[in-house]
């Protein structure tokens, strides 16, 4: 398995298009029922569990938003952001500052309108802070950019979070929950609403030129620009979008906790967020949501298992919360080494089925579909290869695959070959119907 294991960052990306086979009416009904069951189940659980559970569920929703924000940078752009606690934390303080200092929320009351405005302001602040990082990312990539993001978050922690008027020092900046959405349960549903909005935008992102452009840039900037993509703009746009999502999450965190304290946003949580996206599966929306929710709910899941909870608390004398980091990072290592597609890949048969494809364990174009390799024939003329040579025009070396491809492709004419791919040249020679009619 190790052979396929390595490419976490290169894991099969999101698939953009639906296909020709369509499920029957019954098939669609079955899918809709399952979807309804899933969403209904989540809503029903949120409605009936005790309040402190609902509070944790809202954290799960917020983590999912953060996961989707990180996923844009990690999965779509392909860079590592180790300072996301900076974006989220700054946005949280901004939201709280706006609500309490500027819009006059008191410790008892805060209007819904103020909350929404605060969230918008927080989203904007996230966008601005992320945009700065995006501009840096135009010049610096890879490991060194990761280092810069780490330092970015470090500065947020040590400097910005210490600014007195913004953060009120150790006491923290208050952010009272909006009227009508004050209980834990109501707030959880509020978070669901924002999560749904974020999912919608992420969905439209991938289904439109924006997402395609960003993915094309990730794989090959030079080809992307030859396709007409403005590489600079779309790279920065990706960071801005990530910042907007992070800003929304920050605001929600602020109003959830009702007091924003800088301790809540440290580098350990930033690293944990990166790991949760890795475990979820880079670039895989569903996986990231599930992974993020899992990380948020983990201690509570332990609580569910009575004997285990008892063992941890009483025999070991530890809080279940402590184990989140251990289990989370162990899962991340496992994912990177063994299952690079993460949770997303594991549940992909289900998500593909729900999306309207036939149920199968493999994606189209991978696994099942095996294009026939052209037979490696001896080179047609030594002259052709010699003329082509081993070097490109600029003196750079031809890659190994290009050389191998040359060896494969230099073959006898179509008439000698039984396999389909060489016959596409037959299409050229014979001419397809449409083209000839023009």
């Amino acid at each position: 398995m190790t052979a396929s294991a390595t490419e976490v960052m290169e894991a099969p990306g999101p698939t953009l298009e639906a296909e020709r086979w369509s499920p029957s009416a019954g098939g669609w009904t079955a899918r809709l029922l399952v979807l309804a069951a899933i969403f209904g189940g989540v809503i029903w659980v949120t409605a009936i569990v005790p309040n402190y559970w609902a509070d944790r569920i809202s954290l799960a929703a917020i983590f999912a938003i953060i996961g989707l924000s990180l996923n844009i940078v990690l999965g779509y752009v392909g860079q590592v952001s180790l300072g996301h606690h900076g974006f989220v934390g700054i946005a949280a303080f901004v939201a709280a500052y706006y609500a309490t200092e500027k819009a006059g929320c008191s410790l008892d009351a805060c209007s819904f309108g103020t909350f929404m405005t605060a969230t918008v302001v927080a989203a904007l602040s996230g966008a601005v802070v992320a945009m700065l990082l995006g501009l840096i990312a135009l010049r610096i990539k890879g490991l060194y950019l990761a280092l810069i993001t780490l330092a970015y978050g470090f500065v947020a922690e040590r400097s910005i979070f210490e600014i007195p008027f913004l953060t009120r020092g150790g006491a923290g900046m208050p952010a009272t929950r909006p009227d009508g959405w004050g209980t834990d349960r109501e707030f959880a549903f509020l978070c669901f609403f924002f999560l749904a909005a974020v999912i919608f935008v992420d969905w439209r992102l991938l289904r439109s030129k924006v997402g395609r452009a960003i993915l094309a840039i990730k794989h090959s900037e030079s080809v992307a620009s030859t396709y007409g993509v403005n590489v600079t703009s779309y790279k920065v746009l990706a960071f801005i979008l990530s910042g907007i999502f992070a800003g929304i999450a920050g605001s929600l965190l602020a109003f959830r906790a009702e007091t924003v304290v800088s301790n809540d946003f440290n580098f350990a949580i930033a690293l944990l967020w990166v790991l949760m996206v890795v475990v979820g599966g880079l670039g895989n929306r569903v996986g990231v949501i599930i992974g993020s929710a899992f990380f948020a709910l983990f201690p509570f899941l332990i609580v569910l298992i009575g004997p285990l909870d008892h063992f941890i608390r009483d025999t070991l004398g530890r809080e279940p919360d402590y184990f989140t980091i251990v289990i989370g990072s162990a899962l991340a290592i496992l994912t990177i080494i063994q299952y690079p597609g993460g949770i997303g890949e594991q549940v992909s048969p289900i998500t593909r089925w729900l999306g309207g494809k036939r149920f199968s364990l493999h994606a189209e174009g991978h696994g099942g579909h095996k294009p026939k390799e052209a037979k490696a024939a001896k080179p047609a003329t030594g002259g052709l290869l010699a003329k082509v040579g081993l070097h490109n025009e600029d003196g750079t070396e031809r890659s190994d695959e290009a050389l191998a491809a040359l060896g494969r492709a230099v073959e006898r004419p179509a008439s000698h070959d039984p396999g389909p791919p060489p016959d596409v040249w037959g299409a050229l020679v014979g001419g397809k119907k449409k083209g000839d009619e023009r």
Partner: protein
Amino acid sequence: MSSVLNIKDTGIRFGGLVALKDVNIQVPEWEIVGLIGPNGAGKTTLFNCIMGAYQANTGSIEYRDRDISLLPTHRRVALGIGRTFQNIGLVRGLTVLENCLVAQHPRIGYGAIGALVGAPRSFSEERRLKRYAMEVLDFLGLTHLAHSQLDGLPYGTLKLIEIGTVLATDPDLLLLDEPSSGMGPDEAHALGERLLKLRKTLNLTVLMIEHHVPLVVGVCDYVYVLNFGQIMTSGRPQEVQRHPEVIAAYLGGEAEGTSEEEASDVPA
């Protein structure tokens, strides 16, 4: 006939290495112009300058009488210049269909913001884009590969897909970098026929880097010879083919390059 592409006194150097010097090339409308020369002559470097991947140090590049020397690559593409790569210019992580969709990027009728918030226009445009992409794939006989990843597909198929994507950008000027590389004589012949047909049906102008001499002789209206970064000579293909310096530049030439029989194979 006016020039679609006018390269004036263009030169570029990398550190101490002069890759191109005093290059002057005119590509008139609807002509297929060939660019030949030994390896290392600077042909792909010139393409990179035309496309904006490299910034020429001297001279200017004009497209339809408009100086594009300072425009970024994506703007030049939007003006109508399409380009293929020697090593296959496709995005490897995306499927065939996705590549054809991205290729239409300059022609998309909705804005980024509209797309993100789900404007109705983005939905209808997407349907149109997909239809057009499928048409191009159908034209090339590749619909069965629409959702395939590019890895594992044979070199010849990838070349074909690349032609599809470059056509999807709806270009007026096509820069082809060794389109026949990896092909035997019959396929190259077929490619030549295809190019002539496309030129007629799509009103294309073509500048083509090529090594395959029969293809050059049969298809090109005019040929420039580049050697050590400078234009050595230019003229109609038959003349250039017999030019003694050209033959010498190719180091004695191969049977493929100078055979009389192969030259007669080729359509007029």
